[in-house]
């Protein structure tokens, strides 16, 4: 009953005309940006942050949340029409979505993606409403030692679950923490790694790094791979209608994948990509016609689409209740919230219920917007994919530049942005994952603060991190998560031998 009252309160905020506009604008912008091959939710979120300057925190987060799940939804369109997923979380959608498009059923695949995203999103919001306050109550008892261990777990989980080298993931995370602690140490007032320049006294803004490592690096990568002048042909869309038997076929996979997706999203480091692959492989195993997966099976579109949207909502649980993001995208969201002066965490449910419940309610509305507006508009929105690539790339560049300049009014930051763009390109070319860097950048300074507070409480005794049971278990899980890639490799080797 309390949750229902809170939700009603949330709706009273989300239904304010200005917030309704932000939900719509966020979902629409996210869909458009997420659709562009290469630009995922992290780039979309980073590009939209400058628009939230001076906004009410609840409105800002409503806009950003809309961009996030809009980008996941938009990614499915380029997956289906071009076989070029805009977002990693929609790669699994292309396995069957693109073959369907080649068979002249692109409209059907897009409609399934829209319905599945809607149901996945809506089911997971119900879970979010139930789980988040419970977790928030547990998290109130967390002290600095527990927070430090939780952040260590968040980082190791993101590193170990990325498909790239474990060592390179850890290096990216360490570099991210190094960047985060540049500037004046707030506890002692000491300057650290400022190279004697006043521009670095406040450290490096995370938006500079996020836009550089993701959006700018992506433009450089496209230029390198010949994306400058080449256009990809896209499939015609065709009818969006589904038959009764098709609806019946996809109902169960959508239900199962929605629940699976939500819980995958809650786990630190997992998220839309892993959720969608798990949903896809689960349905492939369960389906009687599993052998037709990969050849245009409608369940192969429904499962990953419901799972990725559900995971996207699930990833809000650790962000909103613990204040610790579990993925690169939610790290950028946290950065945006911090810019707006809101620190998510267990206290937020009590101190800023308007932000928490406003966002939850806006998610219901956002999912309805996604379905009602985007479905009929998809043929129109998809025309963005026909935009000449050279023009598109130069526009993305200007959005990055103005985003940074509009925040800091600093030419130095523009040059830093360029530097991070080139660093991002190098990371991409040599197999360094970028998500751990951005997550570490957001968590680094808070992690150091928690560690120092914990040590101050214990008088410098490091055993505080293992004396507290929750902290100890979090550290054990963090250590185990680093073993995961080794275990996977061992299983692979054993399989290869047998």
């Amino acid at each position, binding site marked *: 009953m309390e949750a229902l009252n809170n939700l009603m309160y949330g709706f009273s905020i989300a239904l304010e005309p200005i917030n309704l506009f932000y939900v719509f604008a966020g979902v629409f912008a996210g869909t458009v940006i997420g659709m562009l091959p290469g630009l995922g939710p992290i780039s979309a979120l980073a590009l939209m942050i400058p*628009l939230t*300057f*001076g906004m009410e925190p609840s409105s800002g987060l409503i806009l950003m949340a809309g961009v996030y799940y809009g980008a996941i939804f938009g990614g499915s369109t380029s997956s289906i029409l071009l076989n070029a997923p805009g977002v990693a979380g929609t790669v699994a959608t292309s396995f069957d979505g693109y073959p369907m498009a080649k068979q002249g059923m692109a409209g059907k695949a897009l409609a399934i993606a829209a319905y599945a995203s809607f149901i996945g999103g809506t089911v997971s919001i119900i879970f979010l409403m139930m789980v988040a306050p419970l977790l928030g109550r547990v998290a109130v008892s967390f002290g600095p030692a527990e927070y430090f261990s939780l952040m260590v777990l968040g980082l190791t989980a993101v590193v170990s679950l990325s*498909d*790239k*080298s474990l*060592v*390179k993931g*850890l*290096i990216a995370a*360490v*570099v991210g*923490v*190094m960047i985060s*602690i540049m500037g004046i140490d707030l*506890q*002692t007032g*000491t300057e*650290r*790694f400022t190279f004697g320049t006043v521009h670095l006294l406040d450290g490096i803004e995370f938006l500079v790094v996020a836009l550089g490592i993701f959006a700018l690096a992506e*433009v*450089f990568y496209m*230029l*390198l*791979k*010949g994306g*400058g*002048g080449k256009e990809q042909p896209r499939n015609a869309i065709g009818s969006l209608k589904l038959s009764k038997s098709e609806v019946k076929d996809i109902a169960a996979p959508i239900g199962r994948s929605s629940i699976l997706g939500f819980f995958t999203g809650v786990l630190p480091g997992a998220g839309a990509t892993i959720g969608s692959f798990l949903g896809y492989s689960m349905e492939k195993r369960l389906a009687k016609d599993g052998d037709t997966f990969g050849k245009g099976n409608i369940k192969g579109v429904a499962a990953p689409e419901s799972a990725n949207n559900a995971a996207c909502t699930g990833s809000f649980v650790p962000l909103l209740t613990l204040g610790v993001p579990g993925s690169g995208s939610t790290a950028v969201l946290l950065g945006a919230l911090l810019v707006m002066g809101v620190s998510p965490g267990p206290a937020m449910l009590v101190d800023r219920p308007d932000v928490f419940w406003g966002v939850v309610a806006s998610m219901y509305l956002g999912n309805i917007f996604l379905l009602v507006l985007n479905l009929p508009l998809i043929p129109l929105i998809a025309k963005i994919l026909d935009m*000449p690539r*050279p*023009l598109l*790339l*130069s*526009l993305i*560049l*200007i959005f990055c*530049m*103005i985003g940074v*300049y*509009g925040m800091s*009014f600093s*030419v130095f930051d*523009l*040059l830093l*942005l*360029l530097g991070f*763009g*080139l660093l991002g*390109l190098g990371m991409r*070319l*040599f*197999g360094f994952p970028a998500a751990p860097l951005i997550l570490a950048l957001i968590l680094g300074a808070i992690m*150091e603060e928690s*560690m*120092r507070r914990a*040590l*101050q409480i*214990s*008088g*410098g005794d490091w055993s505080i991190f293992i004396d507290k049971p929750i902290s100890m278990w979090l550290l054990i899980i963090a250590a185990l998560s680093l073993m995961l890639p080794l275990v996977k490799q061992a299983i692979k080797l054993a399989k290869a031998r047998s």
Partner: protein
Amino acid sequence: MTRLNSNQVIALLLALLAVGYLAMAWQIPSFPLPRPIDSDLFPKVLGFTLLGLSVLLFLEKPKAQDVPEALDPEEQQQPLLLRPWSRVVVTAISLAVYAVLLVPVGFVLTSVGLVFGLAAYYGYRRHWINLATAVGVVLALYLTMTRVMGVYLPTGVLPI
């Protein structure tokens, strides 16, 4: 002596970075009052961790994903300025020039120049559409930022 692979080259660079970082960490001044841990501890832990990880990277064999894919041979045959790496270099230089000129010349002129110039350089030949898009988008951005959001953008030589 065998040639170093890409992981080993990167590992050596990172090790150098870690050593430099540690040297700087040792120069962080101590806080006058005694504290359980000071400002230099965390950076030192990070520096040593990076050093250790560079050793591990040096020993790790690069997989396919750790080596840049070969570039399109057709693109490599193009005139020097249009080759893939040239596109990246020219874009990076243009962005640096944009950053430097932004304040003296103004947001509108530099931004229109950047969008139009780079799109044309990347191969977009419909110049009028290019110019109209560049002017339209930049003006829309400028007016939204300055008039709606109250964000100051440099006017430069234009009186707007």
